[in-house]
């Protein structure tokens, strides 16, 4: 039993402070998790590494946007995880867009279903975060952002990303 009134008051105050801090924490965690969702990229377009104009095909239901750079060691570290995401994207008939923060930091690497851009239009430029490499996001129908992950992807990020791709893609049997 707590006998000292001072300790009793201190405990009540400490409990209240904790409740406030935990409430703020839950709110911020929710905001961080939900950040950017629903943001739209109405028309993604740009210029490919080969200098050709490119514009997203409106009939493609989803796009995976990957911010990466050849001189980024975390991107190299994340390559296996990204490969898994790319495979899921291909199976789900999603197009993958690779872009580097600064033009010239990405070597051409032709792969089926992957487009590499050196310049982006404003719609796409506002959504991608050039300060963070690697950075992966999934855009659903109408260019709506449905998932994104900043930094190297762990198992749970691959799982969440895969789930997001499947939810907006087509014909995924895996």
């Amino acid at each position: 039993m707590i006998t000292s009134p001072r300790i009793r008051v201190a405990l009540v105050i400490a409990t209240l402070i904790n409740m406030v801090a935990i409430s703020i924490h839950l709110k911020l965690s929710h905001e961080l998790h939900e950040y950017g969702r629903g943001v739209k990229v109405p028309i993604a377009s740009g210029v490919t590494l080969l200098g050709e104009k490119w514009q997203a095909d409106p009939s493609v239901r989803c796009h995976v946007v990957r911010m990466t750079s050849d001189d980024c060691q975390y991107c190299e570290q994340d390559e296996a995880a990204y490969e898994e995401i790319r495979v899921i994207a291909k199976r789900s008939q999603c197009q993958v867009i690779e872009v580097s923060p600064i033009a010239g930091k990405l070597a051409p690497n032709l792969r089926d279903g992957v487009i590499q851009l050196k310049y982006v239009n404003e719609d796409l430029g506002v959504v991608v975060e050039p300060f963070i490499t690697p950075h992966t996001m999934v855009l659903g129908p109408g260019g709506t952002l449905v998932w994104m992950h900043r930094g190297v992807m762990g198992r749970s990020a691959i799982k969440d990303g895969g789930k997001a791709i499947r939810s907006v893609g087509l014909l995924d049997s895996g």
Partner: protein
Amino acid sequence: MNPEDSSAQIQANVGANDGGSLVPMLLLHGLVCVASVVTVVDYRAFKELESRDLGSAEIPTMGSLRGQDAVSGLEWSVRSDDLRFVVLFRIGAESRTLDFWKDVAARTRSTADAVEFVAVCAAPGGCGEEVSIDGLTTISSLDPYQMRALSVAESHGRALLYRGQLLKEAFQVGLSPVEVAAAVVALVGRESEV
């Protein structure tokens, strides 16, 4: 009462009080520790959210002034050894119109020749028909870093002044072309003296 019994009773009471205050004190320490850890985590989460907010982000000074010309489709760039001044701004629904900037360019050209005005069109075809004024270029795309710099500036109602590849100033865009042209001329004059 036996003095020895009395002393034993006092010691027993003291022991009981120690035990009674030890648990609440430990609980109090625990709560303070938890509150401290949660506060630190909250602060980090808050800073991260703040860093993602375009409006509060700082305008990055590095990048590459390269993009695609909206009219010719050719690559547009400023070489790093090129010391000409470039004013980069956005044309969009909420921004100043292209005519506004044409006016600014015309007024600036009469006093400061070496300024190139570069408009980034918010959407394909957003800059309309071919621009027929000297010193004003329209581009449809930039690299992401530069596009971000422009978006951050735009969210603060600013345009960007470069000398070569180097960002010199993110200046407030005034309400009239006369005001903006005067600001550009003043900035160019100041930077030319450096």
